[in-house]
């Protein structure tokens, strides 16, 4: 009888222990998941800012004015720092919120930078052909004009030479 009681007590103790461990795991896992989510979101925000900056650089190389984009990138950078601080302090919800805000700004910067780059490339192509045509036409006109001036000058010079009289100096003595 006492053996049965001991077995029952032991089984109950094991059951209680298993329930406690399961309870602790169920309590910890959302916390750990929340921290992981926040860490991943901050990492995504960092990547989004880098992508936005690369797009801004491309737009700048295409000849676009990127002053407005740089102002917004600074805003995204400041929000990213706030997200990292919140993450460091264990404030996952704030880190998630700031990271989402940062991604929003960075994505809008990237989209605007891509549009600016496309319009700048169109503008640059038009400018390139305008400059090229202007240069070719103006060089051709200049060369033709110079050739005509040279011909006139040469003809005039030859005529002047032919019209010259030979002068002989006499020795009166």
């Amino acid at each position, binding site marked *: 009888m006492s053996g049965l009681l001991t077995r029952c007590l032991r089984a109950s103790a094991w059951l209680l222990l298993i329930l406690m461990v399961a309870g602790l795991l169920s309590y910890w896992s959302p916390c750990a998941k929340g921290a992981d989510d926040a860490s991943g979101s901050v990492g995504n925000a960092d990547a989004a*800012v*880098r992508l936005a*900056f*690369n797009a*801004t*650089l491309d737009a*700048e*190389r295409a000849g676009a004015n*990127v*002053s407005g984009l*740089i102002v917004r*990138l*600074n805003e995204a*950078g*400041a929000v*990213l*720092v706030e997200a*990292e*601080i919140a993450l460091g*302090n264990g404030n996952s919800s704030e880190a998630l919120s700031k990271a989402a805000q940062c991604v929003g700004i960075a994505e809008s910067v990237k989209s605007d930078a891509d549009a600016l780059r496309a319009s700048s490339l169109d503008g640059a192509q038009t*400018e*390139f052909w305008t*400059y*090229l045509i*202007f*240069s*070719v036409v*103006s*060089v051709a006109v*200049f*060369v033709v004009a*110079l050739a005509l*001036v*040279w011909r006139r*000058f*040469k003809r005039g*010079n*030859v005529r002047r030479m032919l019209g010259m009289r030979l002068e002989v100096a006499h020795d009166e003595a």
Partner: protein
Amino acid sequence: MKLEDYKVIFVAVGLVGILIFASPALSLVLRLPGGERFSELWVLGPGHMAEDYPGNVTAGVNYLIYVGVGNHLGSSAYYVLYVKFRNETEPLPNSTSGAPSVLAPLYEYRVFLEDNNSGEVPLTFSFSNVSFSGSKSTVGNFVTNGVSYSVDKSASWDAVNSGYYYQLFIELWIYDPVSDVPSFHNRFVSRWLRLA
């Protein structure tokens, strides 16, 4: 003057004229080398001047400095400024090898600048949990821009300069679009702080 001499003058004028009229198209193709490319990093006192820097510091008092960055790299740049704090024995960045300090940053700024532009960011700091025992002082917390960090750094009494000395320094890192990571830009500024 002979006709041949005039011909030479016409040819010279022609070449100069062709260069002048072709310059708009040439400007699209030829790129003249720019000036020297570099970044600037500086630290200023609370009045945006190179004066009144906090030197003698005490616990619980807020101090303000400004950290400035200038971009002369020929294109926009993405800088990261790391704020670090050390005692006399901990390492500074190594300018010769271009290696940053191994100390973990306490705070950071992310600054984007167009070419030939500069910017300044405020940096406030204070100390808490400061203790003195014998010839040793300990700083428990370093508070920067309202965020408190546990640092637990100790400094021994400096008999030559009569004080406990700590150093606040800021490293300049730059994002490289090719490698897609920021790397140390081999520049840092620092201020010695005498704790009383």
